[in-house]
């Protein structure tokens, strides 16, 4: 009686142990899947504004909780909310809302056509050639500021995006405790 119990339990232990061993080998997960998912959500421009080396670094920091969900300026508020929902944390939008949306602009009269800015642009938002004035595609610029850093004449500058009739909308009503 005792013997059969010992045998059967040992058998069970061996079988499950083997199963687990096989599963660990063949169903192995490479890295944290959350990191890959978070990286998919990030802009992918590797601009480095968050202080991490590219979006992969930022995604890792987000996954292990060492960075706040508000780390990505080009992503804006929509990304903050998406990340907060993904990670199940509360998003503090106050800091994000204050930052004005910016865009790079070339001051044409001092651009010397050195081509440095468009080489560093992560989204190919600057077009130009040697000795030619460069221009910024507004739709493609994420305001990462890399061009501003390399410009030798301070011709490329980040400017706040002007509000137009298309982008204007009503402010949130200031009513204190109402509603």
């Amino acid at each position, binding site marked *: 009686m005792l013997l059969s119990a010992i045998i059967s339990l040992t058998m069970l232990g061996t079988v499950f142990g083997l199963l687990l061993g096989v599963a660990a080998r063949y169903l192995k997960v490479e890295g944290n899947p959350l990191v890959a998912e978070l990286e998919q959500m990030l*802009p*992918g*421009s*590797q601009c480095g504004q968050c202080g991490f080396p590219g979006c992969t670094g930022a995604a890792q920091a987000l996954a292990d909780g060492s960075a706040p969900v508000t780390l990505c300026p*080009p*992503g*804006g*508020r*929509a*990304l903050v*909310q998406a990340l907060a929902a993904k990670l199940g944390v509360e998003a503090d*939008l106050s800091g994000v809302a204050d930052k004005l*949306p910016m865009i790079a602009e070339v001051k044409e009269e001092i651009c010397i056509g050195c081509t440095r800015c468009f080489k560093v642009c*992560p*989204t*190919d*938002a600057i077009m130009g050639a040697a000795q030619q004035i460069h221009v910024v595609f507004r*739709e*493609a610029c*994420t305001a990462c500021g890399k061009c501003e850093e390399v410009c030798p004449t301070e011709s490329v500058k980040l400017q706040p995006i002007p*509000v*137009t*009739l298309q*982008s*204007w*909308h*009503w*402010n*949130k*009503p200031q*009513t*204190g*405790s*109402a*509603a």
Partner: protein
Amino acid sequence: MKLFDLRGGVHPEGKKSLSVERHIRPLPLPKKLYVPLQQHIGAPATPVVNVGDKVLKGQLIANAQGAVSSSIHAPTSGTIIALGDHVAPHPSGLPVPTVTLESDGEDKWVALNAVEEPFTLAPEDIAARVAAAGIVGLGGATFPAALKLNLSRNSGVQTLIMNGGECEPYLTCDDRIMRERAAEIVEGIRLIAQAVAAKEILVGIEDNKPEAIAAMRTAAGDGEVKIVVMPSMYPMGSEKQIIQVLTGKEIPAGGRPADIGVLVHNVATAFAVHQAIRFGKPLISRIVTVSGGAIKTPCNVEALVGTPVQELIAFADGYAQPAARLVLGGPMMGQQFTNTDVPMVKGTSGVLALMSAEIGQAEASPCIRCSTCVRACPVGLLPLEMAAHIRVADLTGAVDLGLKDCIACGSCSYVCPAHIPLVHYFNYAKGDLAAQERSKLKQEATKKLADNRTERIARIERERAEAMARRKAAREAKERAAKEAAAKAEAAA
């Protein structure tokens, strides 16, 4: 005819008696006209004139751009003196691209393409002429009218509803146009019906306009155009609500009237269509009600598009007392403005100068959950719940409660005993959601660009490495061949 019940709604004081007995009078020709390039929903028009050009009244000055847009014509003859920014008739007060026209005082028409027998025109032809005349919905939404005709014809609309509701307080421009120009409106309605092959034509008019109803009945006679008297209630003149009252059908959430076989146009739009088809005249003027407690002589004016609002106010003998708020359109859904340099545009139905007694400016107090707003909402939403979600920045929660179905009629704000600016919350939330949507689209686009760039850089690296490997292999082969040749030569020697 049997009418169907409408959910919710409110009964604001009409205040229409201020201006309703005033005949439509033309405004004297203004010196300068500021014609914005965006007077419609969709893309702004592109100007086809230059500074210094002489134009005639009705000449095309800006072309429709893209699928949803509308052309713009010179309101009078004169010289283009500027193409630049001018303050917009919009609550933001932002500048918009505007054509400034200095009138030469002659008001000389361009050659017009009139049609003697308009009812022989093909439906496509009517829509094309409506598009060429730059006609937009004159009820206030300013959706390009020709586009609506084409969409409705293609989706086989059965019922054409003409909106003579004019449920906004103060406004009497549609009332006056129906009284004074009923025959033209009825012909315009029949032309619209022909353009979309509608089987049933209903003109809904609120029962507070008995003269307009009588005039329209006389003009319509026993023909296919049926005049239907509707109870006076706000927002009866809203597209969704008028459809519900007249047909009993409800537009599905996020849908268009064409989805349920209905097309709705304003009666003033029918007049514009008549002018465009019968006489070839583009839409360059409209009837505007100038009213409000602060206006000395409230009246109805036929004014050119681009007329500065201050000239309209001056025509109504100016202010009787200081205006606490200036509004373009009606008091419920209109847009407030401060600068009287703003021009009136195709969608301007009214210019109101209201006294402080006419605007409820009480401080908002906490919600007492009385649910008056729920009973007032014509769409059947829960305004108090939606506002509470928006207040704590939970916009998705508000969307789940039906924020996108809100028609921003303002009935909830009007009845709220705590004076909570409910519709302001909803307008803010809709704007913020649209901004988030735009930034998400941009982020997706830039991500694609960034991925393309990374891929391109990797490809260039790879190609460079491959080219180097090829060159190396070629060099080695050459050296080997040279060595072998040398060895062979040595062996031969």
